[in-house]
């Protein structure tokens, strides 16, 4: 990152303010972490401090009470299949929009634009009815299809910008050799753009992992619930036991944070793509 102010200006005032902001960002998270180890009694007497006894039982109880052994695999399956499905849909589409001259590609953009600006609550009820008639209600597959439909436009445009930046020589050479578009896509484009797929996959995956509204509407069977709704149900049932619910929250959040720390560059890239000029 470039430094904008030169050496002659002190950076200490910067650091002071940045530190303050750091605490604002971080302390709430730390409090969640610390409070997840406290018993309810200790929460009453020591609500914001470091735990005096580290009550790991909170975690084992949360694990059992929140049925994490069930909801984690559910989330994993749903998220993984959503990523696969979305990329399978978005990859070819992105290639088509980027490299294959399609008359009406502007219309496609407009179409997606309209679809994305509609509030979810407008179409969630008709969708519910449709899914009921198709027997897709209360199935993981049904939810996965919905997630793919919702995240495909985003993934398409993310991948499109990657494809556009790929060098054209390979493609030209392959075309002259007579390769079909499909072959070019599978053999050349896909291997070359795995960073783009990775980034898109991460963002889509995170969205699916965190998604709440559709999960709570379309999956009511407790054995099928993913983490987001499972946690919500857990929080509602055990609302008074803050130590327990905090532990439950930490379990859900920890994999995300770890994954984020390892792949943060890709995450940030994928999530900020839209705001910057290409």
């Amino acid at each position, binding site marked *: 990152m470039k430094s904008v102010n030169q050496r002659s200006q002190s950076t200490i005032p*910067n*650091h002071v*303010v940045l530190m303050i902001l750091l605490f604002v960002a971080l302390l709430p998270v730390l409090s969640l972490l610390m409070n997840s180890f406290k018993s309810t009694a200790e929460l009453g007497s020591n609500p914001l401090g470091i735990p005096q006894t580290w009550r790991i039982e909170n975690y084992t109880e949360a694990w059992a009470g929140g049925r994490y052994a069930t909801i984690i695999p559910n989330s994993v399956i749903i998220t993984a299949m959503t990523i696969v499905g979305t990329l399978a849909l978005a990859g070819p589409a992105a290639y088509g929009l980027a490299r294959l*001259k399609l008359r009406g590609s502007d219309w496609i*953009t407009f179409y997606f634009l309209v679809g994305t600006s509609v509030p979810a609550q407008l179409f969630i009820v*008709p969708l519910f009815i449709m899914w009921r008639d198709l027997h897709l209600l209360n199935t993981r597959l049904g939810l996965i299809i919905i997630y793919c439909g919702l995240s495909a436009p985003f993934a398409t445009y993310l991948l499109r910008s990657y494809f*556009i930046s790929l060098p054209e020589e390979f493609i030209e050479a392959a075309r002259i050799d007579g390769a079909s578009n499909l072959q070019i896509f599978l053999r050349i484009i896909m291997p070359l753009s795995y960073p783009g797929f990775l980034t898109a996959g991460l963002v889509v995956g995170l969205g699916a992992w965190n998604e709440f509204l559709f999960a709570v509407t379309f999956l009511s069977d407790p054995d099928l619930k993913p983490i987001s709704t499972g946690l919500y149900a857990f929080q509602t049932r055990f609302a008074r036991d803050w130590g327990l619910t905090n532990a439950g929250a930490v379990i859900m959040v920890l994999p995300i944070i770890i994954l984020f720390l390892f792949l943060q560059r890709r995450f940030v890239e994928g999530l900020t793509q*839209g705001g910057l000029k290409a």
Partner: protein
Amino acid sequence: MALLSQEYVLGVIMEQASLVKDTTLAPVRQPSVNKNLRALGRWAFVIPVLVVNSIVVIIPSIIGIAYAFTDWNGVGAANWIGLENFTKLFQDAIFFKAFTNNVIYTALFLTIPIAVGLLGAYLLAGIKRGQVIYRLIYFIPYIFLSVINTQIWRYLLHPRYGIGATLADYGITFLDFPVFGRSETALIGIVFVDGWHWWGFLVVIYLAAMAAVDIELYEVARLDGATRFQQFRFVTLPSIRSTLIFTILIIFIGTTLVFDHVFILTGGGPAHASEVMATYLYTQAFQNFDVGYAASIGVILALWVSVPIMMFYILRRRGWEI
């Protein structure tokens, strides 16, 4: 969906689509292949996405809009009642409250988080060491699910366990009340939590935009005797204008469609004090089963949201450098 929130997706699509409109290659002429068949082959790449997206989003939306003109209640027949839902809506005091709340939400969000985001980004751009760490930590609240955010802040703002109560033990009582239980402060409390969630995202985006600004410009400004604040105002701000506008757009859309945090923190209460249009729609659809009425709210919502989007899109297409 928290991260793939609609406003964000919208922004990305518009940015990408409008920026690189005409960079498609002309296919190399392949002799003796049917032209239409080739076109179909190309379209085959795009059709699956269109199909799934249509089934999941577009078609239900059209059906939903149609419901707005009926009195359907989820079961039984749907009778056409024309604009009755809409006239009822315009006389609905709760809806008016919800709409006002959305406007307040937007106004608050467009000022404070953006200001603090710019501040954070500007300060970050000015230091040499530790940028990555700060950036990382600031971004963490953004990747949290709304259920987690609410869990954290409901505790911290709890009348008995939270910061307010603890400060009161030391005699500082101004925070000692149930933030989400009081009508005057419920909405502001929600905005605060949501702002805490979004702020890191803004910092990272602004930082990336600022990093692209030419250092020469700052040199010139400094040689002219500009203070740091003046540099910010006359060099940084104009240079990141398009990013700034992008964030304003997605904030507008996001605060209009906001649902998760409001729903989980207060459910629109107390007594509709923090109701927003999206939660009101939800109540009407899934608790009152007045699907037609809910759909009419949806139509209004979609119309209101599309105003800045259309403006943005049209201006961009005309080549305005915004």
